[in-house]
């Protein structure tokens, strides 16, 4: 049987859950496995529950599953929140010092959850303690591995003669990881190596952690048997381990984006921080280049600065989330009427308003499509996974330049907080097309000169002989204000006509991707792609063929292409992480066709392929509701 293993680590925010998961992921990736990791966290700095699930598989994977194979927990909350997720045959490594902890003593367990937990434990006839929850798991076929984390630290301190180790509870994460890796029989060397890599800048910390890792790893041998193991498989060449925002960040560097203005917001600002920490760029056969990353006073300033920079001919962008994008919409229209190429990377999260600020959502599709007052042309383009987002970033900048138009690149929290293995990005697959950006100008220049296809050669601030004017008012060909009715028609038609050009010129393979079309076909966009592909595979393994069409170009909507792709599909299932089935609405508006079923999730947690599989299965067997709502995930 193929290895398909899910590991979960949880703990209070600030306790090193993320670095623990990082180590585990690196080690498993180094052992040749495919990794799909996902982080969940509260809008909080310290103390609230955060957890990381890392799915480890021999086959290609694109999402999480429902079941956890091995959980490691050094706090009671992780056990209370996740004991039910561990599958029969799985295991829980936990700190035995927690056994007596009562549910009500865990202050971070919120009331709605506590009520559900109590009802659940009551139904299982288990006391409201850690032991109660663990017994429930054990009764379900889960093996328990109690470890006194405190005794481990004491043992380490005694062995090394370093008394300070005795109280180093911040190493619980590394201990949990090492126990887990020891239990599943993973070779130890990659563990030490990745600790060294992660703490490369702090040799002292690296040394202490490596010591803890060695001690805990060897202790794991005393834990007993475990039904699953991860011995490692053949290395795959050209594999990288990436975090969610690396795709768009590295894509921006390669695409030649040299100006990024932003205002801090989850989950978008990781990208800007990453760009700034790599602000000096290596350039082939030339002096170093750089990205000017400017933190602004608000998102209005972020888009204003980006537009100002774009007017100098610099490829410019910003990265934001829903609340920030909402503030940008007035200036978005300005970029529209002045035909300024800009790229907004929109890392969506759950709205409305502040919503679930650190949770996932694909809530902003219709908002992006209709953003801004007045009629103007823009492109809304969505990536389905991290690898795609690298290449798509290159495309977005080309679309912006070629059509002199704002481009909104849709990303989301699910993508941004995933850690995955994928094929090493290939920068040579990104091409750069600046469109009609001028290098020199001869004779009279008119920025908005009438042309057969509506796109005018573009000057840039500072270019000799290329003086132009811009205004948010309607303008004439020079860019001066006009209120003339005929000039208004000329200019509106000029700007809006490029929507047809976009549909005509962008290759179909960039507009939408078909993963087969069957009687039952799923349609979706953005990050739902991952769970859908995995569910599609699971269905196939059970002899059920279900098609899938991924729409990437959401605006202008490729109605003819999508209609053609879906021609063979009798029953359409719209799958999205929002409440109203926003793609379904666009589909109806543009093609007249309405999805027959909806599978929606708006808990703020990403879909698992398991729950998606179940819903599609039920649809096919006639036992599903017209609108299936997914709920999995703590």
């Amino acid at each position, binding site marked *: 049987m193929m290895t398909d293993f899910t590991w979960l680590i949880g703990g209070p925010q600030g306790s090193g859950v993320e670095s623990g998961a990082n180590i585990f992921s690196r080690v498993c*990736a180094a052992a040749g496995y495919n990794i799909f990791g996902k982080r969940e966290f509260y809008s909080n700095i310290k103390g609230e529950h955060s957890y990381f699930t890392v799915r480890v598989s021999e086959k290609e994977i694109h999402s999480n599953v429902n079941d956890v194979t091995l959980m490691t927990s050094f706090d009671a909350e992780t056990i209370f929140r996740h004991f039910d997720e561990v599958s029969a045959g799985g295991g829980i490594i936990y700190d035995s010092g927690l056994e007596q902890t009562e549910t009500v003593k865990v202050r971070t367990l919120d009331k709605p959850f506590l009520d559900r937990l109590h009802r659940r434990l009551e139904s299982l006839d288990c006391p409201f303690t850690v032991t109660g929850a663990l017994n429930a798991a054990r009764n379900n076929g889960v093996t328990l591995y109690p470890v006194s984390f405190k005794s481990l630290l004491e043992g380490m301190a005694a062995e090394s003669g370093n008394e300070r180790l005795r109280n180093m509870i911040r190493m619980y994460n590394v201990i949990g990881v090492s126990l887990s890796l020891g239990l599943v029989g993973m070779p130890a060397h990659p563990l030490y190596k990745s600790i060294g890599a992660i703490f490369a800048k702090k040799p002292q910390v690296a040394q202490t952690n490596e010591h803890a890792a060695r001690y805990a790893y060897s202790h794991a041998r005393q834990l007993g048997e475990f039904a699953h193991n991860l011995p490692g498989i053949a*290395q795959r060449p*050209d*594999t*990288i*381990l*990436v975090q969610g925002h690396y795709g768009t960040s*590295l894509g921006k560097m390669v*695409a*030649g984006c*040299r*100006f990024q203005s932003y205002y801090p917001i989850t989950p978008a600002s990781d990208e800007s921080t990453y760009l700034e920490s790599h*602000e000096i*760029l*290596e*350039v*082939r056969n*030339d002096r170093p*280049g*750089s990205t*000017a990353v*400017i933190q*602004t*006073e608000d998102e*209005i*300033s*972020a*888009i*204003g*600065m980006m537009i*100002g*920079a774009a*007017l*100098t*001919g*610099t490829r*410019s962008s910003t990265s934001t989330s829903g609340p920030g994008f909402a503030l940008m919409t*007035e*200036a978005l229209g*300005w970029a529209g009427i002045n035909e300024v190429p800009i790229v907004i990377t929109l890392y969506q999260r759950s709205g409305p308003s502040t919503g679930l600020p650190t949770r996932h959502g694909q809530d902003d599709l219709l908002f992006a499509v209709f953003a801004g007052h007045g009629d103007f042309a823009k492109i809304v383009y969505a990536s389905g996974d991290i690898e795609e987002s690298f290449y798509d970033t290159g495309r977005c900048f080309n679309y912006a330049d070629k059509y002199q138009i704002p481009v909104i690149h849709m990303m989301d929290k699910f993508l941004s907080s995933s850690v995955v293995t994928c094929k*090493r*990005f290939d*920068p*040579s697959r*990104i*091409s*750069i097309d600046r469109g009609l950006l001028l290098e020199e100008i001869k004779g009279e220049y008119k920025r908005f000169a009438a042309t057969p296809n509506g796109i005018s050669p573009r000057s840039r*601030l*500072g270019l*000799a002989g*290329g*003086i*132009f*004017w*811009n*205004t*948010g*008012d309607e303008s004439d060909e020079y860019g*001066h*204000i006009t209120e003339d009715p005929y000039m208004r028609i000329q200019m509106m038609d000029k700007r809006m006509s490029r929507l047809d050009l976009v549909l005509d010129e962008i290759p179909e393979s960039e507009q939408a991707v078909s993963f087969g079309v069957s009687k039952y076909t799923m349609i979706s966009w953005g990050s739902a792609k991952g769970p859908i592909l995995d569910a599609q595979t699971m269905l196939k393994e059970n002899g059920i063929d279900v098609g899938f069409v991924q729409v990437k170009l959401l605006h202008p909507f490729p109605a003819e292409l999508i209609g053609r792709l879906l021609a063979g599909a009798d029953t359409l299932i719209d799958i999205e992480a929002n409440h109203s089935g926003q793609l379904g609405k666009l589909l109806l508006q543009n093609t007249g066709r309405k999805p027959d079923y909806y599978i929606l999730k708006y808990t703020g947690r990403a879909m698992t392929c398991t729950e998606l599989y179940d819903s599609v299965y039920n649809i096919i067997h006639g036992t599903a509701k017209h609108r299936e709502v997914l709920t999995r995930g703590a």
Partner: protein
Amino acid sequence: MAPSLSEYKTDVHNDWCPGCGDFGIVNALQMALAEMGIERDRAAIFSGIGCSGKTSHYINTYGIHTLHGRVLTFAQGAKLASPDLTVVAVGGDGDGLGIGAGHFVAAGRRNVDMTYIIFDNGVYGLTKGQASPTLKLGEKTKSLASPNQNYSVNPIGLAIASGFTFVGRGYSYDVRHLKDLIIRAVKHRGLSFLDVLQPCPTYNDINTRDWYAGVDLADESAQRHSRIYKLEETKYDSKVSYASESVLHEKISQALIKSLEWDTKIPIGIFYQNELISACTVRMADKIPNYLENPPSRQRISDNSSPLTDISKILDSLQI
């Protein structure tokens, strides 16, 4: 050869009201550009919304008429991407100190090397004369239904408190003085701010040309009675000439005190200037050594449509 003054003018019909103070500002700006000999295509005028927003269309350089309150954001972005451009931003007092006040404060902190001119007339002219942020509390200009309910903001004081490193005030009917002031402001290394008193003949019937001229103050002796006086004709010294906390505090304090003068004596000229604080472009060069020679707008990013950026080292570090 540097362009002549007339070459800085466009043939766009100027539709400001007859007698508008804005004319003096646009003339002074064109004169300043001509006198400095700045090539037309090396300068960019950014403007906000309202009557003053049309300024960029009347000047024959790059002209970017932006959004209400947001002019500084566009202008700073352009300057940071292309630091060798001469950038001047203009806008009304409602634009810069009302809807755009947050950007005003943030721009001061950033100190990008450019100039910001506020056309200060106490009213929102283009929307028919509502009270703007600089109109005094209790004043009732002619289209207000009742006296102004809000205290007025002090543009000079706010600029100094926000970190602008050159702060001055001009008067739109003293075009030569204003022209000289603009030249000083543009040449300043850092963010310069000019508050230009600009009577709105249509809607502000209080702070009129005659009021500034002190016609109401005229007494029998018929001595000079203009409210406006020039700081440079007094012993006032606006410049922070060496880096010491006490000097800085002294210069800031005197400028703030000076900025409170109004009513019968209104100073124009330079209130505060400090080139010892580094401009944002210099701060950028501190962390990106070749930023000024190879700024964002100049960088080569592709060769024959192939990207030139080499990220192989980053990818190597991510390799399993």
